[in-house]
């Protein structure tokens, strides 16, 4: 079964760090894509047969991340140096930061980072963090939460959005659209 791991990188990790690491490990570069309006800039390497490591720059949320896919020992062999060399925040750290951050700008960034590392199946701590963001008094933070919520394929999110819709006239249109998307078959 294929494995996947996402590293949400800290803001001070430049793409050059990934390039240097890949070069030092002898990973062949297999692709590169420029940013488009709806296309994220990315760069891909193949650490081993069947393993891909992709640097992704989400320009909409201002989040950089590395996605590793593959399986077996080669997967671990690819993930281990990345984990050691590139500064990153795990999901628990990001979820905790939602409770401590006060600046809207920081919370807006956190919304994007949480969406980047959301698990496939619903996680209650993660959902609670999203609930906090969706109910934040600053509309800009709520906007970011709605925008990034499109990245969650969780049916458990729909009742949260329904609740929020009852209280948030400013973003009613956006919330309705999101709810339709979540409830679509």
């Amino acid at each position, binding site marked *: 079964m294929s494995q996947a791991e996402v590293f949400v990188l800290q*803001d001070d990790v*430049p*793409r050059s760090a990934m390039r240097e690491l890949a070069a030092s490990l002898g990973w062949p*570069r*297999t*692709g*590169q*894509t*420029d*940013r*488009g*309006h*709806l*296309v*994220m*800039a*990315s760069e*891909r390497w193949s650490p081993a047969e069947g393993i891909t490591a*992709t640097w*992704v*720059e*989400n*320009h*909409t*949320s*201002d989040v*950089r991340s590395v996605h590793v896919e593959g399986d077996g020992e080669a997967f671990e062999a690819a993930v281990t140096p990345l984990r050691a060399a590139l500064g990153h925040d795990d999901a628990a750290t990001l979820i905790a930061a939602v409770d401590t951050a006060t600046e*809207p*700008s920081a919370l*807006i*960034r956190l*919304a*994007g980072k949480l969406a980047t590392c959301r698990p496939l199946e619903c996680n209650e701590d993660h959902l609670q963090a999203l609930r906090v963001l969706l109910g934040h008094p*600053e*509309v*800009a*933070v709520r*906007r*970011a939460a709605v*925008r990034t919520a499109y990245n969650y394929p969780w049916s458990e999110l729909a009742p949260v959005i329904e609740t929020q819709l009852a209280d948030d006239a400013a973003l009613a*249109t*956006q919330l309705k659209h999101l709810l339709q998307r979540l409830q679509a078959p």
Partner: protein
Amino acid sequence: MWNAVYTPLRDLEQANSAPAWLAALIRCLRMDDPFFEATISAVRGFDLGDDAEMLDALANRQSELSADEHLLRSVLYTRASQDGPALEDLDRAAALGHPTALSQVHYLRARLLSRVGRTAASGEALDAAERASQSDRRVSEAELAHARALSEWEAGRPDDALVLVTHGLSLDDASADRWRGKGALCIELARHDDAVVALDHALALQSDDDEAMVLHAIADAANGNPDEAARWIERALHLSPHRREALAGEPRLASVRQHPSVSRQLEPSPPPDTTWMDSLTSWTAALRYAMGRPEHRTRHAVQWFDEAEARRIHAQMVTDHERGPLGTMHSAATLEYARELLEPRVIIGHAAGTSNREGAKERCIIAMDPGPHGELWVALSELYPSFLWIPAGRDAASLCAVLDVYFPRPTRRRADLTSQARGFIGYRERIVVPSPRTGCLEPAGEVEIDRHFTLNPFVESAGWGSAFADDPWPDDIPSQPRVVLKIERRREKLAEQAPGSVWSMSRRLRHSRGYLAIERHHGDIFTAMVRYSPSPHPGPVAAMNARFGTEYPQDLPVDALGALLGFQFDHATDLEAKLDATDDPEIAAGLLLVISALRHSDLDAQQLYRTWSTHDAASVRATICTIATEYNYESLLETMSAAEPDAQLRAEIEAVLDEGLPMPDLLPSEVVRVPSQEEGDA
């Protein structure tokens, strides 16, 4: 089984033991069949050298092929000399009743059947083609008559063939190819006066037909007219010098070969006297000797010039750099620098060089500094200014090491191009490029910039738009009928842009095979991006930077530099230094727009915008909003909406966020949807 028919014919011919009738048949099998070739070409479409891939795709198709696909596959098999499978596909296409080109299907069947000796079946297929052409009009009566003539000839009845060829020409006399065919047939029948008349017709219709010229010379020789034969040989060799050896051995010219006017044309040129080089320095004789050794000669077939040719090329290069070769854009300073370096250098030889996509060959020139401290220089083509020549040491090993980098032409895809250089080249209509009509500089937008690079000798002329991540052109476009028109049509298609991408036109760098992309941002800002493999020859770029105060990366290939000549090339780092130094909000706003264009695909730039998004001047903050909107930096806009002190600007930001950030404007003709793996990744 069909190939089995040909194999003994080839063997017999090579053994030179075929009886006369079989020899004639073999000649007929190779006789020009212009309409057949034209039909094959038309069905094939634009040949991009990918027959094998197309054939593979059609052969592995799970679903039933349509009549059109059977026709296409038959053509691909024919081009691969697999006449048996080709006939099977044509039979299938005929059985399915090709809706628009049934006469072509039967015509191709007829020709292939005739080629494999099934004359009766071929005649029936031509009858079927004639019936089908009543409705689809794909094969004219004249071409059908010509095809019947070819069948008669292939069946060993040349007199009957001549009657039919003549009949075809009476129906339509505007085909140079069929007149040439008649000329060839008349020569076969020893009717040389008639051959001359037919070939005169052919050459009147197509004056550059070197094959008709050769046939004319053969007919003239048979008529005892060696001076006329020599005249046509000279014209044919002028167009196709490579034919000299074959013509020297052509048996039908034997009667005139010793005539002075003919022998003068067919004599091989004497080898150039290259001993003059040995007096230039102490090491040139050793260089000549070493480059003649097998280990070097097999890598790069360097040929040395005689002194007169060397001086002629040098003089031509000096002249070319009075104003700059066509398609280049020099300043007075770069022309002066080019001449200053060129004048003392001595041209000594050339390597094979490469061809561009369209097949035009360009020699790679080898030069040297005279005197005891001089060295070799490699000009990747004669159009490179001397300051972009690459130093190549003094011996065969160092010369080959330079040539190895560029010849044979390296194959590179986007993933291989690990380095990038981006620069701001100017604003719309403030950029200038040379007018092809007057040679004077004129203001430029997308169209004029694109036209400039179509003529520029440092890039391939055919480009592609942002809808294509990688070069969609083959390295070599095979020679084929109507190739210019086909390239132009494909060029229009490939110029299209992907929605949401920055408008761009990319081209291959001519020798290093990197990509040069011109991008348009914010409506009127143009940037250039070079994707490249680092050059191992930093010397020319370093010297140019030192001379002109430019800051091109030293590992930039020289063809990239040649392509960028005449444009400014401001780096983001230089502009950011100016941004830090200015107190003027308007200047800052202008610089931010240009920097955003240069760094649009660089996430690290968002920190810069966050810093400037709190600037005191509303015009600067509005500029950051413009950047964020244009490039879909939505979280930046959200952050600004929370902090923006100006109520009106804040309302505008929120309105944009409510509506959703619009895609950048593109003209409808610029848009094409090409799904890519990258989009899936994103």
